[in-house]
Every structure is written in structure tokens, then in C-alpha cells.
């Protein structure tokens, strides 16, 4: 029996010729990542370990992005702890405010994640880098500490689910709609402990930003990782952004998949996840009543990239945000922000009555920069709509694409561009 793409990468990093699902292995790490919430706990744990320092100063990335620029004194102390640790250990890839961005948009842009890597990050959306053909997965702070100290992590080799993507998505259907459709189909634990392997000719119609969005939300189906084959588009992206060598792994023809799904992208419609789980999906056609919206957020590690901002600008150009509604737009990195400025997108947003923020995860996890009051509703391009995630426990989050979010900001109710 052959191996999946994920299994091949893990085998190579464990120094084994082959691995099978369920096997416990210890793998070498190419990158260990942490942010301002998870790193302080990891640093505390690492200091209890009998080690002199980090395993490799170039293979650790520390990105304060959740509560920065510091939202309060306690957050400032956490950031200070991370900053001082980075300085003490001469961490090459520490990104201060001014050069930081939302970690999962920043690291591929900086060329730190490439095909064939094994990456762990103390952030659940670390699975994003599967878009480039890497094995990457979220872990907690203690795993991060052990990874920083030893350069290794233990894994249970995952079984796999194959998603065969065919056809071409219609306009206003993006990567977000693809992954929300999948989560709606298999549920928030549909891929529990398993890898989500995306294959098929439909992938060629998905931009890199679409693929980052899809891989990013593998965790929302319970997946250990999401992974795409490495095609010309992915190679061009890596050559543009990275100086590192990359390795392309391909699944064996006789690789074993516990489940297989075929998804015709041409049949997908703009999809929205209703409160309070990402699996509560409806297509825009099923939204027949007016659902009044108080706030719209366009940003996050899921949908704060250039494609997303361009799409939002296309909808908002020459239009205005509904009176009484707040529309918050957050470019995910400084480079994306700058490019959006050069393309005139920021001007469009501000003229439309939206507010544009420095990169931060802030509102997505109810940190700051857009907290919801009692019973308020938000259409958000973020990734989770759990109870209380963005504010008051009675507030409601509707997860959607940038196109649906921007159109809803204009309409004041859940909408999409063709309904404006």
C-alpha cells in the first residue's frame, strides 16, 4: 500500500522509508512558530527544560499579531516577554510591529514556508501552509517549547480523506466558499485526526490566495492538516517569495484514503456559516429573509490577503456602507497593505465608509478592534463563529467570503454582489 502526500513528507522527516496511518513517529522540524498569546507559555515551559537555548535560530518564527499593537498592559507584558526571548536567543525571524503581519499570511510571503517542509505552530491555523505542499499543523505551547528546544516533534501519522476538486468556480465564488461547503458537508469533526488531501483538475482554477484560505480552515473540520499538490502556480509563488530549496512530494497512486469526495466547483454558490458552528452552512440562495447586520469584518489569516481586498474593493467601489453599520477592513500584512494602497483599494474602502486597520488578529478572536455588543450580528471573513468568539455571548457571527461580507456591508443585511 502506498503513501499519501502527507505520509511521504512525514516519513522523510522521520528518516523512515515508509510510514502507515496510526504509527507514532518523531519528525525533524523545518520551522517552529508562535505568536504573542502562545509564545509566553512556551517560553515559560522551555525555561523548565534542561537545554542551553533554541535548536536553530533561523528555524523559529515569532510573530506577535493577536493583541498588537499592544491592547493593554498585560498584552504589552506578553509581547515584551516574546521580544526579550527573541533578542536573547538571536531569533532571526522575529517580526516587530511595523514589519509584522498576521502570521499565516506573513510567513509564506516572507518565504519561510515551502513545499516539503514539516512545520508546527502554536496556533491552530498553522495548517495554512499546506497550500504550498508543506505538512503543517497547529500545536500547543508545550509542543512549541519542545520544538524550539529539540527541533523535533512527535506525531501520530494521520489517515487521509481525499477531496477531488473538479470544474471551475463561477464569479463571486472563492476559496472561502469551497471550504465552507466542505465543512458544511462533513461537519466540524468530519476530518478529526486526519489529513485533508485536495487533488483534481479544479485546483488550477484556484489562486494561491484561494488555496491558503482552504488549507487555513482544515482545522475547522477537525483536520490535522490540509494539503495541495505542488503545481506551476505554487512553484512560481515560492520562487517569487523564497530563496529556500523546496521538495515536491506526490501521493502514490495506491495511497489509501478512508473517504473520498468529488466536488464540482462550478456548482458551488456563495456559502455562509450561520451561528454558532462553521458547519451550519447555507448557500446565499437559502438566505431568503433579511438578516440585519451590525458589523462586517474583512481580514484575518483566512481572508486578509490581496485577492480578498481586491474582491471587497470591487464590491465597495462607488458604493457606501449602510448607515449605522461598521465595516472594518484589515490587510493581513504590511506588504499587502502597501500594495492595496498602490492599487487604490484603501481609498475605495475609506470613501465607502469603511475603517482600515493595521494588521492584527484582534476582532477574529474577540480580542479588540471590533468587539460585538449584546445580540449584535457580524458578517465576518474570519474562521470561527463559536458562542462569544467575537464578543458578547449573545452576539452572532456569520462566516462568509469577502464578496458576501462587502455586499452585506452595503446592503445592511446578508447579501451578495448580484443582489445589490
Amino acid at each position, binding site marked *: 500500500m502506498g503513501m499519501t502526500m502527507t505520509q511521504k513528507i512525514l516519513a522523510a522527516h522521520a528518516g523512515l522509508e515508509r510510514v502507515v496511518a496510526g504509527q507514532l513517529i518523531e519528525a525533524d522540524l523545518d520551522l517552529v512558530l508562535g505568536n504573542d498569546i*502562545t509564545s509566553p507559555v512556551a517560553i515559560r515551559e522551555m525555561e523548565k527544560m534542561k537545554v542551553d537555548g533554541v535548536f536553530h535560530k533561523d528555524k523559529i518564527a515569532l510573530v506577535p499579531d493577536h493583541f498588537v499593537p499592544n491592547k493593554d498592559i498585560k498584552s504589552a507584558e506578553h509581547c515584551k516577554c516574546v521580544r526579550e526571548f527573541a533578542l536573547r536567543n538571536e531569533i532571526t525571524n522575529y517580526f516587530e510591529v511595523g514589519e509584522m503581519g498576521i502570521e499565516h499570511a506573513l510567513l509564506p510571503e516572507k518565504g519561510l514556508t515551502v513545499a516539503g517542509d514539516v512545520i508546527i505552530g502554536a496556533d491552530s491555523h498553522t495548517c495554512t501552509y499546506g497550500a504550498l505542499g508543506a505538512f503543517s499543523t497547529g500545536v500547543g505551547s508545550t509542543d512549541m517549547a*519542545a520544538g524550539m528546544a529539540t527541533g523535533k516533534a512527535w506525531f501520530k501519522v494521520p489517515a487521509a480523506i481525499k477531496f477531488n476538486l473538479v470544474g471551475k468556480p463561477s464569479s463571486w465564488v472563492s476559496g472561502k466558499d469551497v471550504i465552507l461547503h466542505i465543512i458544511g458537508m462533513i461537519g466540524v469533526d468530519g476530518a478529526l485526526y486526519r489529513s485533508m488531501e485536495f487533488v483534481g483538475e479544479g485546483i488550477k482554477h484556484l489562486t494561491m490566495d484561494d488555496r491558503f484560505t482552504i488549507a487555513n480552515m482544515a482545522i475547522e473540520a477537525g483536520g490535522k492538516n490540509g494539503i495541495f499538490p505542488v503545481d506551476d502556480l505554487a512553484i512560481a509563488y515560492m520562487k517569487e517569495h523564497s530563496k529556500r530549496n523546496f521538495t515536491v512530494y506526490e501521493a502514490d497512486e495506491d495511497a489509501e484514503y478512508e473517504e473520498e469526495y468529488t466536488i464540482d466547483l462550478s456548482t458551488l454558490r456563495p456559502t455562509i456559516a450561520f451561528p454558532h458552528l462553521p458547519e451550519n452552512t447555507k448557500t446565499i440562495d437559502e438566505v431568503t429573509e433579511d438578516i440585519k447586520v451590525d458589523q462586517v469584518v474583512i481580514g484575518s489569516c483566512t481572508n486578509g490577503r490581496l485577492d480578498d481586498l481586491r474582491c471587497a474593493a470591487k464590491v465597495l467601489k462607488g458604493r457606501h456602507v449602510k448607515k449605522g453599520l461598521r465595516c472594518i477592513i484589515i490587510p493581513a500584512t504590511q506588504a499587502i497593505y502597501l500594495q492595496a494602497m498602490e492599487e487604490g483599494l484603501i481609498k475605495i474602502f475609506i470613501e465607502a465608509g469603511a475603517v482600515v486597520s493595521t494588521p492584527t488578529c484582534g476582532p477574529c478572536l474577540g480580542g479588540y478592534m471590533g468587539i460585538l455588543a449584546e445580540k449584535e450580528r457580524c458578517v465576518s471573513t474570519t474562521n470561527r463563529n463559536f458562542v462569544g468568539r467575537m464578543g458578547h455571548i449573545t452576539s452572532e457571527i456569520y462566516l462568509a467570503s469577502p464578496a458576501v461580507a462587502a455586499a452585506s456591508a452595503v446592503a445592511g443585511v446578508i447579501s451578495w454582489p448580484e443582489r445589490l
Partner: protein
Amino acid sequence: MKKANGYVFKYGDNVDTDVIIPARYLNSSDPAELATHCMEDIDKEFINKVKKGDIMVANKNFGCGSSREHAPIAIKAAGIDCVIAETFARIFYRNAINIGLPIIECPEAAKEIEAGDQVEVDFDNGTIKNITQGKEYKGQAFPPFMQKIIACEGLVNYINQKKEG
């Protein structure tokens, strides 16, 4: 490993880490402080009622969502000695093992145990005894490698012991 024996707090499916410990409190990483807000968005009374040695029982996909280790840290610091669930989300599963919070998967027990029941868990053989209802279940015992980490009370001690060994 020492058995757990306590009274049960019962929850449903997909208890996510945002309700276990809301992000608005993540500007702290102090276990005792985190514990004071544990579960408050779905069960305001939990932290007032929980006693050292109690047990948490839930249905499927417990601990889904964020990778925040603050979630198992808060549960452990609140006094919970063991979490039993039908299934656990994978990052929570790893985190619980890594910080030395014993967890055990057992669909039948998760379904039948009720809030307030007295339950005993023997981690060495995976036996779950519901003393109140007089029923016994066999949970999924940990592989030896993970048992060693839990016996060391977490990954840090395990790695330190391995280095000394």
C-alpha cells in the same frame, strides 16, 4: 498512575476552546487566574461549584478550535482531575497530554454518565466506573509512549528525564 475519583460536570458536543477559556482573558497566562474564567460562557456556575478531584464529561469533539494551551491549563487549575469524552479535537488532545491533564475517550461512558454522578477512572487499564449508576466501561487506554508523558506530568518533565536517562 493514581486513579481519578470525583463528581461529574457534564457538557454536550463541540465544546470549543473559546468557551473553555474566552480569548478576552488570554492577556494572562497565569493558571489560577485563567481557572477563574473557565467555562463561564456556557456554565457560569462551574467555577463556583467545582471541587478538587472532580471530573468533566462531554460528548464529541471536545476542545475544538484554537490551539490555546490555556484551555487544558484552565481546566486543570480549576481542579478537574480527568476529562472523559466521546472524542477530543486533536490539538486539545495533545495539549492535555503535554501538560499532564489525564483525558480518556469512551463514547458509551460519555453518553451515559450524568451530571453529578460519582465516577472513578483507572488510567492504567482504561476502566471507568460510574459508582452512582453502578456501571463500568472500558475507555481507550493510552499508548505506552503517551502514558509515560502523563506519568511524568507532562512533556517538559518527560524530555528532561529522557535527557538524564
